[in-house]
């Protein structure tokens, strides 16, 4: 009697248990991908976050905020893999200032009950996410290059000289991803519903004053298929512009620079490739006058093909370059440019 009762109890308990575990599973797999926008346009580079979110499995919700956000939300709704878009229409969020954007995310995360919050490891993500993580009392996982499971991530440390696999015990994972490791999600094929998010209207203690963006018709450095990069060997800004820019145009490439070139004023800081600058992984990385210090390699060694021109045959760059040419860049680069133009 007793045993049959307990058996029936068990039998009843089993489906319940199953349902419960399923809901737990669903709770385990719900990601909020925080997308960037500039002046009413979705930043497609930030769609790498959607790709990473999809890899986690489970539902993917995209988050956008800013003034006249409607068109951005509609763009985000078409992104492949996005099930829902949360949009908050308030010009106070236009500049992505973390003082009010982080509390905004906290409220929306509380409401949505997400387990993973993902953004690109970009200036926006780097500025915002740690503040968000602190408000939620979670330890963020920065700049991941791979997802092993819903709580295990792979990230480079020591300027990419070591690769660490880390496991998070936090119930909400705050993650920034390396854009070059996750291709941006397709901007078509999705049909997400758009929902209005909660707006706590927190006061922003920082005032945005101005911006000074380097204007360029060339492809964006971080996402370009080809990058040409110059170093200290260029000797001056005039030479940098005279030698490197025509090569970039001949290849349809973005322009990058080493820290030495940036520090010497040959190139703008936003062009810096390396541990402290941008991390790129184009099809072709062609560099001239760059010796190949580890800090620079940290920013480009995942490129598919690396080509180097340097007059020092012992420069470390030749140890990793697929194609090396020893010679004076002032001769070789213009020759290369003219031959490519043909």
């Amino acid at each position: 009697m007793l045993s049959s009762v307990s058996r029936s109890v068990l039998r009843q308990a089993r489906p319940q248990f199953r349902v419960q575990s399923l809901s737990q599973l669903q709770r385990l797999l719900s990601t909020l991908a925080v997308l960037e926008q500039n002046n009413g346009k979705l930043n497609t580079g930030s769609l790498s976050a959607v790709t990473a979110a999809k890899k986690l499995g489970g539902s993917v919700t995209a988050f956008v905020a800013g003034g006249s956000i409607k068109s951005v939300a509609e763009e985000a709704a078409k992104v492949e893999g996005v099930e829902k878009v949360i949009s908050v229409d308030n010009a106070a969020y236009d500049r992505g200032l973390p003082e009010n954007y982080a509390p905004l995310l906290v409220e929306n995360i509380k409401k949505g009950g997400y387990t993973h919050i993902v953004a690109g490891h970009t200036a926006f993500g780097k500025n915002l996410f740690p503040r968000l993580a602190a408000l939620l009392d979670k330890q963020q996982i920065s700049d991941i290059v791979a997802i092993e499971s819903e709580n295990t991530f792979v990230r480079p440390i020591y300027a990419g000289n070591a690769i660490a696999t880390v496991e998070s015990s936090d119930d909400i994972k705050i993650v920034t991803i390396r854009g070059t490791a996750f291709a941006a999600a397709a901007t078509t094929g999705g049909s997400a519903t758009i929902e209005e998010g909660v707006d706590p209207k927190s006061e922003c203690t920082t005032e945005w004053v101005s911006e000074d963006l380097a204007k360029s018709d060339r492809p964006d450095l971080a996402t370009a298929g080809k990058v040409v990069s110059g170093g200290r060997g260029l000797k001056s800004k005039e030479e940098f512009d005279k030698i490197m820019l025509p090569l970039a145009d001949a290849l349809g490439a973005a322009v990058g620079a080493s820290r030495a070139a940036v520090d010497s004023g040959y190139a703008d800081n936003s062009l810096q490739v390396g541990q402290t600058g941008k991390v790129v992984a184009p099809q072709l990385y062609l560099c001239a006058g760059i010796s190949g210090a580890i800090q620079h390699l940290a920013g480009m060694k995942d490129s598919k093909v690396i080509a180097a021109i340097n007059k020092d045959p012992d420069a470390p760059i030749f140890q990793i370059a697929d194609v090396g040419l020893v010679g004076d860049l002032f001769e070789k680069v213009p020759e290369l440019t003219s031959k490519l133009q043909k």
Partner: protein
Amino acid sequence: MSALRILVPVKRVIDFAVKPRVNKTQTAVETTGVKHSMNPFDELSIEESVRIREKKSAPGGVEDILAFSAGPTKASDILRTAMAMGADRSFHVEVKEGDDLEPLTVAKLLAKVVKDEKRNLVFLGKQSIDDDSNQTGQMLAGLLGWSQATQASKVEFEGDDFVKVTREVDGGAETVRAKLPLIITTDLRLNEPRYASLPNIMKAKKKPLEKKKLEDYGLDTTRRLKTLKVIEPPTRQGGGKVEDVDGMIAKLKELGAL
């Protein structure tokens, strides 16, 4: 304008010029017998604090500069360097080698120091070159509810406690303005750190360095992130050299890069 009471957290890391090696058990990077120095971004923080005092660029002046480090015994050396560069005094919270604190824990620790020591400006490096997290400054700002200006390339003071900071962002720079108290993280273009001169190194030995205990801050230091393994990145094999530009073009075509 209020006088600045600056806190500069500094971290002892493997010297930036050393190529780190993963240990045999693949649990971490080999640190024994490896040259360590101050995290390069933290040098910029110290330098900027000292320059603000020297150039009298803050209307209220600088009351004092407190350097802080949480790390192994040898982190004291880094604090001495900070004082030789111009910090007035320092705190050292000793942490056992290998028991590194996570950014969130460091931020919580710093939040307590900020309150205890009534700081109104904290300069941190934008990231440490070992863990490459780029989190602590922002987390501290979040915990304190203060304004933050990350990746600063220029810091200017205005009346009424306002600070204007130019930040390095993707594609260029942007300028933000906030009122003290404030958290600033430093980017490479901010300044060029000075070398500590021998007389200043000698003087720094007399400056106060207070040893603190982690337990005194009553923090939970349990790690949320467990490192499962650390490996060397796949090594890239160079493809050798070509003779001339034609050779380079041919090889690039062969590799499908052109």
